């Protein structure tokens, strides 16, 4: 079977981790062709061609594809669909924006956040904030799906697939990009970090949220946050971990001042080791923690930062 994998390309650069994890899932389904689309995408295509298990890389470069606006990107992908049995992408916000649109253009359902591949038609996906896992069998001619990257290992490097150029679809011109507000950071990326330190409402203010960042920097970790911390303005939106934020599964997850609502657990309960620091011994986060410490975070976190 022929699979089209939509690479995650941001500002011309391949997001290797997300793409390589979705590639592992895609390779279980058949022969993988990778599409790199963007205003500039040739260096991303170059990088994608080195991933193990890629047969071919297609590169589509056009100004209209520059900011992954849904309309031109979905039109491009839908136009190529007839050659493939499966169209797969990592479950990033870009792909979640584009893939359902592709599916509807093809009159097929989309499969969001796939966590398991049973066979070419049958897939597992979490529902109800991960409180249930549904196994579904698709009767659609083309399977359009996004892959939850935290459940698949990244494919390695060592390939040398050929790169071919394809042209963009007509831009319907329905939307235009205005600006991006992206915080530059030297920290590892949240969804691929080995360690994540997350803070919740218990931090109490944006200034004190710095305690979390200091601990994270000591550990070379990424920083996450609960919805309450983001809503209160202690942390930016892209740090939110949970059902409706990012899903992470690092080697070590440290939750500080987070109660452990199901919506938060949905985004981190597959972490290898979970540490919880909370002053309330009844906090539900302790039910999923490997190591729980009942303490005031304002003394425990600085002490931990110093002693690690």
């Amino acid at each position, binding site marked *: 079977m022929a699979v089209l994998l939509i690479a995650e390309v941001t500002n011309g650069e391949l997001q290797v981790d997300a793409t390589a994890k979705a590639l592992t899932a895609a390779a279980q389904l058949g022969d993988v062709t990778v599409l790199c689309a963007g205003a500039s995408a040739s260096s991303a295509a170059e990088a994608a061609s080195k991933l193990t298990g890629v047969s071919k890389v297609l590169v589509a470069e056009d100004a209209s594809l520059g*900011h992954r606006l849904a*309309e031109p990107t979905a039109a491009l992908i839908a136009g190529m669909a007839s050659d493939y049995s499966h169209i797969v992408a990592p479950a990033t916000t870009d792909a979640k924006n584009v893939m359902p649109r*592709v599916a509807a253009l093809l009159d097929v359902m989309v499969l969001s956040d796939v966590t398991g591949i049973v066979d070419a038609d049958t897939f597992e996906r979490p529902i109800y904030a991960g*409180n249930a*896992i549904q196994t579904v069998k698709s009767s659609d001619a083309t399977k359009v799906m996004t892959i939850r990257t935290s459940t698949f290992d990244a494919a390695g490097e060592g390939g040398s697939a050929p790169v071919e150029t394809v042209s963009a679809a007509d831009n319907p011109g329905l939307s235009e990009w*205005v600006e991006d507000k992206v915080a530059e950071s030297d920290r590892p990326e949240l969804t691929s970090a080995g360690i994540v330190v997350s803070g919740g409402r218990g931090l109490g203010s944006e200034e004190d949220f710095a305690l979390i960042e200091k601990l994270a920097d000591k550990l070379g970790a990424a920083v996450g946050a609960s919805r309450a911390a983001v809503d209160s303005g202690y942390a930016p939106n892209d740090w939110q971990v949970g059902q409706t934020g990012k899903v992470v599964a690092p080697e070590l997850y440290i939750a500080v001042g987070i109660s452990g609502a199901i919506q938060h657990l949905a985004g981190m309960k597959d972490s290898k080791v979970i540490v919880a620091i909370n002053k309330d011994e009844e906090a539900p986060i302790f039910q999923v923690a*490997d190591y729980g*410490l009942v303490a005031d975070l304002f003394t425990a976190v600085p002490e931990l930062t110093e002693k690690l």
Partner: protein
Amino acid sequence: MKVLVPVKRVIDYNVKVRVKADGSGVDLANVKMSMNPFDEIAVEEAIRLKEKGAAEEVVAVSIGTSKNQETLRTALAMGADRAILIEAADDVHTDIEPLAVAKLLKAVVDEEKPQMVLAGKQAIDNDMNATGQMLAALLGWSQATFASEVNIDGDAAVVTREVDGGLQTIKVQLPAIVTVDLRLNEPRYASLPNIMKAKKKPLDTKTAADLGVDVAPRLEIVKTSEPEARKAGEMVGSVDELVSKLKEAGAV
């Protein structure tokens, strides 16, 4: 401008979900059901657009069983002007797939001709995050998903979106589909007088057959199972103990 707001009736976000022992699904009998939280945010935004004078009419639409009347009354009590119920199932356990929902909504859009559809980014039951994007495709409209700010600017909407790297602002031509994220606003509570008034607001009922849409699922649910449970860990008494445990476990 007319704004259409699709609202879904889902299990309340506070309820602990139970998977049925026979693997046939999740038990929804006698559990508290509410409006999908993202849809409350969408209703709130539509009402604010009306209050600002950018919209004239807010129409709420829900697809499901006759029980969804309750969800629509909530939208009306918040301030929607009228409601449309589309009955597409007899059993509350039947979830209508996003593709079918999008086709039904397209039929409503064709009749109502709104300039904007404000939907939730995601239903918290099936966690699909798909309907708005699918509706935009079927209509050939622009889409702005995961909105944390919406401003009308002539015949366009300027929308700030919550994306993986931070925030992105785009300008979409109207008519457009906007799906809303958590930070867009804080939905109001309906006041008692407004709840009373809502009972008198118009609520039309249609069926999927009236709209000529086939809602047969494309995904057959083979089984529904419990996720693997984490085994309970241990409590530590001090930061020192935590540090030594983490070192022992090789976690740091």
